[in-house]
């Protein structure tokens, strides 16, 4: 296995998977950056969109576009419903986090009960599940499309945050909620808007990435670990730090896949996270997280 012949695959797959990891993680980092809420049911919403598309497009064979739109709306409603039910009863961060995780587990058990256990279901894709050859490397069209869309979404979200009036209010809330409240910003409303956008982003990630994978009741774990790892490495500060962090994880995984005989690619994300915590506890984004 000479290294030169692997040069292109590592670069291309590193970039491809990196952008897809960024797509999965932006929503998570955005919500925490603004509201310090750790959306532990984030992975479950990713799974919900997939099951909704399966229910509408495959079981009731509605046209794909319509099922996608319905699924996005349903996922946002479920996401906000979870958020509101918890908020109605408690503001204690511990109970908040535990209950969000419980909702993720509840959704897992419900889907496992309704759609049958560990059998991988397939949902239709917007893009053909075919690969083209480029620089001697096979690139799957739908993965390529999703990484380009991810790039587009990153620009859209940064434009929205940094160039629009609502963006300023979001940054103010993230900076200091109390002060922004005094300046007349309705921080509660801002948090709802940011939460809805983050659920929309995770739904889009699910729509683009799940068709090349399988829909199972435990599929929420992998995107959740990625979003977690990338956000911690990014420092949970400004959301755009999640992008370099995503590339660090994807390149490390691909390189370890090629060079290390054992299947270590799964643990790579975690090892990097621990390294970042010990070496630069504030992560790339510099959000002061020193206790």
């Amino acid at each position: 296995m000479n290294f030169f012949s692997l040069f292109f695959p590592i670069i291309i797959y590193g970039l491809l998977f990196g952008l897809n990891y960024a797509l999965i993680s932006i929503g998570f980092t955005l919500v925490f950056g603004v509201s310090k809420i750790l959306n532990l049911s984030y992975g479950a919403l990713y799974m919900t969109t997939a099951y909704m598309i399966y229910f509408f497009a495959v079981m009731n064979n509605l046209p794909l576009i319509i099922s996608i739109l319905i699924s996005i709306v349903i996922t946002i409603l479920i996401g906000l419903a979870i958020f509101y039910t918890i908020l109605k009863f408690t503001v204690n961060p511990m109970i908040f986090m535990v209950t969000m995780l419980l909702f993720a587990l509840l959704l897992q058990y419900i889907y496992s009960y309704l759609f049958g256990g560990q059998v991988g279901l397939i949902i239709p894709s917007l893009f053909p599940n075919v690969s083209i050859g480029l620089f001697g490397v096979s690139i799957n069209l739908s993965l390529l499309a999703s990484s380009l869309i991810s790039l587009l979404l990153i620009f859209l979200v940064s434009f929205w945050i940094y160039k629009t009036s609502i963006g300023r209010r979001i940054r103010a809330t993230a900076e200091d909620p109390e002060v922004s409240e005094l300046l007349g910003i309705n921080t509660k409303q801002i948090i709802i808007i940011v939460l809805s956008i983050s659920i929309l982003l995770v739904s889009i990630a699910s729509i683009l990435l799940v068709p090349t994978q399988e829909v199972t009741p435990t599929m929420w774990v992998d995107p959740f670990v990625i979003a977690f790892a990338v956000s911690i490495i990014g420092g949970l500060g400004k959301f755009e730090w999640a992008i370099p962090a995503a590339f660090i994880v994807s390149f490390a995984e691909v390189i370890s896949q090629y060079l290390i005989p054992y299947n270590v690619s799964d643990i790579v994300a975690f090892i990097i996270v621990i390294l970042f915590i010990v070496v630069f506890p504030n992560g790339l984004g510099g959000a002061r997280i020193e206790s």
Partner: protein
Amino acid sequence: MNLNYFRSRSFILSILIIIATVIISYAINSPYFTLTILIADIFIIMSIGWDFSSGTTNYINFGISFFFGIGALFTGFFFYSFNLSIPFLIIQAFFFGFISGFLITIATLRVRGVFFTLLSLLLPLIGTDFILAFWTVLKMPTIGYYGLPSLSNSLQVSLIYISLFLIIIIILIYTLYSTHIGLILRGIGDDEEAMLAQGINTFWYKVLIFSISMGIVGIAGSLYALSTTFAGIDTFGLEFLLFPMVIAIFGGKGKILGAVPAGYVIIILSQYLQLYVGQFTLILFAAFAIILFLLFPNGISRWFK
């Protein structure tokens, strides 16, 4: 060393309940009931371990199924490599639970509470991948060790051993609670900031109690492996986080011994529901846990102070 802990109502009541369940299981003489009580005891040990650290210090530890897995897998590893006898297997489980708890809390407790929780949730998810990657190096026959020695070939005798372990652990925690360290732990749960400002560096105390807690959870893992004669990646499953945490909260967060009655109620309900409604039990359980956390964040059992 004030001894009024040992005279407190909750201590006596818990010991009586544990002994009662053993006697009832003799009376009913249905192996399924005995197995249920045995599983309940293991989960109670875990929720005591969880509550002792997360309950008192409010640092939520989502990673206990990782340490449960460590206890179970090291039991398997030491049995396969060194053929240790059962007492040593359990002692090593406490030891490795303690060490891994120590190392991980040192690395993560420096960061803010919310990150401690965040990272602790990653542990079990990564523990599974770690085993899947290095199972051949760890000389595992399959993705886990099977054919482990069982505590005893009769279920009833195994239940007695495990109940004894549960009582020993309760006594261990109560002795610790009645020492100066116990006072500091309660202080951390009460107002850690005031302690830091007025002279006590709480960091090492937190590391100590998390290590002890994870040692206790390690013991539960080892007992689980020795009762099912198998130690594999299933011990990292989220069920081994969900059940102990709900038992601890249902029993009253921070009131360690609330877990004893709560544990028996919850495990008996779920094991028997499992017979009739099968998989639906988990949905019922998750829904029950959500209602519990939202309506009664500090648990329901009033009689345990």
